[in-house]
């Protein structure tokens, strides 16, 4: 039994899961998407922190900064979070469409903005807010179109049809 199944078999989890709020979007998908947003945000914020730490040590030397960033424990944390994110993302995609999940996780553009202002003291300007808004609407547009155009168009390509059908 996988860890995921174990968690779903806990009685408390089952009780929460049966709440009417989670009728439309099941709890485990909500959790998966929240975890995806948190991990995405963590990767970016910790990565920037690792870079800033090495900049303090080596000033402006790009190559030295690069090496010392990769040696920073914070960067290992980034790699770990990234792998966790990959595993979580594949899990989410087993239960929910990519076109549904993608725009929701792009909310991490907002959380990264907020956290970078709070933790890294970056300045957020109105122009930047406008830019992020455009990106969010753009991602939504890309995701709302059909998820599989391969089967209709590239039917001549025998490889692609067999793969896309799964």
């Amino acid at each position, binding site marked *: 039994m996988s860890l995921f199944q174990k968690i779903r078999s806990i009685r408390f989890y089952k009780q929460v899961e049966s709440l009417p709020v989670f009728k439309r979007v099941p709890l485990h998908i909500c959790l998966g998407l929240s975890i995806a947003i948190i991990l995405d945000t963590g990767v970016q914020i910790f990565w920037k922190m690792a870079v800033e730490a090495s900049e303090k040590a080596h000033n402006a030397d790009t190559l030295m900064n690069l090496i010392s960033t990769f040696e920073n424990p914070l960067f290992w944390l980034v790699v770990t979070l990234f792998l966790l994110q990959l595993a979580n993302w594949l899990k989410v995609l087993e239960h929910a469409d990519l076109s549904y999940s993608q725009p929701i996780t792009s909310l991490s553009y907002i959380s990264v903005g907020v956290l970078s202002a709070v933790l890294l003291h970056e300045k957020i300007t109105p122009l930047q807010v406008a830019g992020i808004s*455009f990106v969010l609407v753009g991602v939504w547009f890309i995701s709302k179109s059909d998820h599989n*155009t391969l089967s*209709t168009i590239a039917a001549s390509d025998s490889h692609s049809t067999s793969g896309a059908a799964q």
Partner: protein
Amino acid sequence: MNQFFAILLLVCATTIEAAGQLCFKKKSTRSADGDLGSRLWLAGGICCMAVEAVVWTIVLQNLNVSIAYPMGSLSFVMVLLMSRIFLKERVQRDRWIGLALILCGTVLLGLNSAGSNS
């Protein structure tokens, strides 16, 4: 390093990211799993991710993460273009609209980073 060069590197990173995704898609659509070809596509995808990590670190040395990360959505645009060119996927009208909006957003973010000089 100036902001313009950093943004150029960011565009490189998103292109590499898209190339990596393309490799993974190529791997996943091969009929026989585990043959040499599919392993090569997988290796290609992983190499792309490794190179991207280096490029992205240099980008973060020069740009605020609150600007660089949303600009990274350019990778969606690159994936769209590459999957049209190399995978011959059909691109629907809504996706072209989304692509245009992301481009607008990215330009605004780019202008913002060129204006402030942090």
